[in-house]
């Protein structure tokens, strides 16, 4: 019985998120635009996340290279290391790791921020002051996450590839030119474009889920904590689901 109730709750939640998303498209996109707040959120969400994303991307590139090397050496294709690492980073590791870190940092902060605003009636105060909180708070944040995550991913990819270059150089020597050439020779638009396009959706998911959770936070500090936590969990799961969809769509479109 409880399972049925939980399933119903799950469906209810899904329906609410869908409604929330629809509201973003019907309300959030129309004028008037909160440009100032949008830029402010872009700064907070994009620029402030760069150090964290950069650090994780660098370590990921380095570690991935060092982990892949032994098996490539076993097959005698060590020279293909830059190609392997480059493809892995650009197609999958870069976008997904960046999005997960992003979900951890931004999803939780949006969830907590909107949650506490909800709890301390700041959202009501906005409504009273003639500001549509959905536009001012939700639309700006969702737009900012959607726009910033692809940019973070590109920068993250670049840093990650640099990490990979250092990783290659730990055990053997390759020039930066050669590494660069090998990586880019193996890359095609069909590798880069789907990867960047899917990060738009990752960012959108992180923004929508964070805002939804915060916006519907229950009273009390516990409610804020739950919002922040469930925002991270749900957006991380969403990222993987979107990733799965993305790979199938690109497969269908024959871009793989």
């Amino acid at each position, binding site marked *: 019985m409880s399972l049925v109730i939980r399933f119903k709750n799950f469906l209810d939640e899904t329906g609410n998120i869908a409604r929330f998303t629809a509201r973003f498209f019907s309300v959030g996109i129309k004028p008037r635009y909160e440009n100032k707040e949008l830029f402010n959120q872009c700064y907070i969400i994009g620029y402030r996340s760069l150090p964290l994303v950069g650090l994780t991307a660098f370590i990921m590139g380095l570690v991935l290279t060092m982990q892949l090397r032994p098996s490539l050496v076993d097959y005698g294709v060590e020279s293909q290391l830059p190609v392997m690492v480059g493809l892995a980073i650009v197609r999958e590791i870069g976008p997904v790791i960046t999005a997960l870190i992003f979900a951890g940092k931004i999803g939780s902060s949006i969830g907590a*921020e909107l949650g506490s605003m909800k709890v*301390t009636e*700041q959202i009501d*105060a906005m*409504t*009273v002051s*003639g*500001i*549509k909180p959905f536009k001012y708070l939700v639309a700006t944040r969702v737009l900012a996450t959607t726009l910033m995550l692809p940019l973070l991913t590109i920068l993250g990819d670049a840093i990650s590839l640099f990490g990979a270059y250092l990783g290659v150089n730990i055990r053997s020597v390759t020039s930066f030119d050669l590494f660069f050439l090998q990586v880019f020779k193996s890359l095609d638009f069909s590798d880069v474009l789907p990867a960047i396009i899917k990060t738009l959706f990752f960012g959108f998911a992180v923004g929508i889920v964070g805002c939804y959770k915060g916006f519907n936070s229950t009273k009390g500090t516990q409610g804020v904590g739950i919002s922040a936590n469930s925002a991270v969990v749900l957006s991380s799961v969403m990222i993987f689901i979107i990733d799965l969809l993305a790979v199938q769509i690109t497969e269908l479109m024959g871009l793989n």
Partner: protein
Amino acid sequence: METEIKEPVIVIKDLVKAFGDKKVLDGFNLTVEKGSNVVILGKSGSGKSVLIKCIIGLLQSDSGSILVFKGNISQMNEDELDQARSKIGFLFQSNALYDSMTIRENLEFPLLRHWVDITKEEVERLVNEALENVDLLHTMDMMPSELSGGMLKRVALARTMILRPEVILYDEPTTGLDPVTSREIENLILKLQKKNHSSSIIISHDMNCVKNTADLVVLLLEGKCYTKGTYEELKQSTDENIKQFFE
């Protein structure tokens, strides 16, 4: 007690609001006249906050009507609501100052929203004036987190007043403050109200506050207007339900 009939500002008729099966407001009636302070008394959870949130349109009532300046809040679209809201001030229980903004920005925020074509000088002047009224001019560029509870309440009051609303709704303005600060806030409310000639609905269970500010006291019980009268009238009452507030 004034007996002459003044122009009504807010007229509430048969207001019903339910959350699930629980009817919080069940046929509530109230008329607020221009220039009068109405205090709504009630136990926690009796629906006082719900009532004023219905008045400003944060909550949608289930049935009944709320007329504010002769417009029915529950039938307005968003733009009309915004229009009506610009004439209504709301002081939140938790102040609801935007903690990501400085005090100045907090005060500017509603100004820039409601009066779109306002000049920069005008904004500056109004913000200064509002802060001066609450003696907090020096906090202009501070963040809300740097201020004490009493100061925050005063800033919130300044923000509510900055649009010169004709009706102000106070949600427990003195709750959580020490008696001295409470007195200050009460005096400020009266002072600003006199200055702006506004009416107000105050939610409180602080009897000192009620005593100092009320022209009319309304007791909210089981979703209905149980009784109403001046502070003195109610204090004399022998009704158990009324008496418990004055003990």
